[in-house]
């Protein structure tokens, strides 16, 4: 996320649907300020008569959020979680839980946006352009996370996608990000070096997997290298039921 022009930063801050970081922002700026009471219907609508249903979901598609405000909000989220926990694992679990609902939402938004853009790009032959398919196999899901989801969140694809080489854990996959945006402005104290605040992103991934019907546990791990000191590996381990279904689907030749 490069530093965006000021007006586009304002745009995404005001939009309830747009960016990966809407939760804290929206909670604090909340709608009540622009609401006028409508006693006749019992429904409160904004003074400009525009509800969230009147906004187009693609309006803030290319708008970017200010990196500084995101860093500030995210740091606050970490602090908030940290005040309420006793250990590192607890803290990561909290961050994970904060990311989870975001993943569920982003999934729908992602599909909505790919549908509408593909049909508008081929508007002359809109009937022939079919919407993207829901992921049925693990690999399609992983590609969805590695590519489109990462681009929606961070403006680029993830750096690597690997399958566990160990024969004991065929249900484990790894997605690597060399320089996760969420950790850019987080300095972890030495005594907490196990902590990786990208647990928040792991929560988002978990939400996406669960939403698609792939029960999974996702965790974030530090794997620094010379070149990438904050390299993070997201470990996805899918549940038994998913692996069983995967075998059935493979036999019946479904992609």
């Amino acid at each position, binding site marked *: 996320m490069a530093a965006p022009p000021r007006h586009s930063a304002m745009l995404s801050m005001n939009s309830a649907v747009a960016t990966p970081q809407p939760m804290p922002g929206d909670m604090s700026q909340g709608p009540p300020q622009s609401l006028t009471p409508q006693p006749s219907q019992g429904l409160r609508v904004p003074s400009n008569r525009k509800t*969230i249903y009147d906004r187009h979901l693609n309006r803030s598609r290319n708008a970017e959020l200010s990196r500084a405000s995101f860093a500030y909000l995210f740091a606050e989220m970490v602090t908030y979680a940290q005040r309420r926990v006793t250990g590192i694992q607890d803290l990561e679990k909290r961050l994970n839980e904060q990311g989870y*609902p975001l993943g569920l939402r982003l999934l729908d938004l992602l599909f909505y946006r790919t549908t509408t853009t593909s049909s508008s790009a081929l508007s002359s032959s809109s009937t022939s352009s079919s919407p993207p398919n829901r992921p049925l196999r693990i690999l399609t899901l992983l590609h969805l996370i590695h590519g489109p989801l990462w681009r929606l969140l961070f403006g680029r694809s993830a750096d690597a996608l690997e399958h566990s080489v160990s024969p004991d854990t065929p249900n484990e996959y790894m997605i690597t990000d060399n320089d996760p945006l969420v950790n850019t402005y987080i300095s972890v104290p030495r005594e907490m070096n196990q902590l990786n605040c990208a647990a928040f992103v792991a929560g988002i991934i978990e939400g996406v997997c669960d939403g698609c019907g792939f029960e999974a546990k996702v965790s974030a791990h530090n794997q620094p290298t010379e070149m990438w000191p904050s390299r993070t590996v997201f470990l996805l381990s899918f549940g038994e039921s998913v692996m069983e279904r995967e075998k059935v689907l493979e036999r019946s030749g479904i992609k």
Partner: protein
Amino acid sequence: MSYYFTILSPTDTPVFNIAFGTSKSGGDGIARFRFPDTAQYMNQFIIHSSLDIVEEAQWTNGAMYLKHVDTYPPAAAYISAFLTPSGVRFLLLHQPPQLSNSGGSSGFGASSILGSSSNLARGSTSSIAANPTSPQTEEAVRQFMTEVYENYVKTAMSPFYKQGAEIRSPVFRTRVTAAGKKWL
């Protein structure tokens, strides 16, 4: 044609439902089901019983719109399904109007010649209303579902909406009604 539309969360909680009638070819938009008014729960029975088939189709077909999935012949009820990527089910039950000359579902196979000719006639005049499995109907339902999906995404993106909670927004209801008027 009468419609019963329902949204079910991935954990089978009913999130939203609405009954409406066709507005095409002179319809007044009021649902007239074949059950008496006291037995409207039949719609819910029929629509929920199609969930097994939806869950089966879910893993063989990656499309979001699963088309017509189930039929319940005794009530001449047809069910179309739409699946969002996050696992929310949109189910639409449609029931063609009762024919005045035949006594409902039992009269369907009465006379093949008469039946086919009347089918053709109805197919040409109002395809959506009378022929629940025609491609035109599928297309109309798909358009309807897509429009509802757009509104559903807007609902889901609201930070005040919790996944799987009932959708109470009157604006959403109005939007769904409008989509029904427009396409069905």
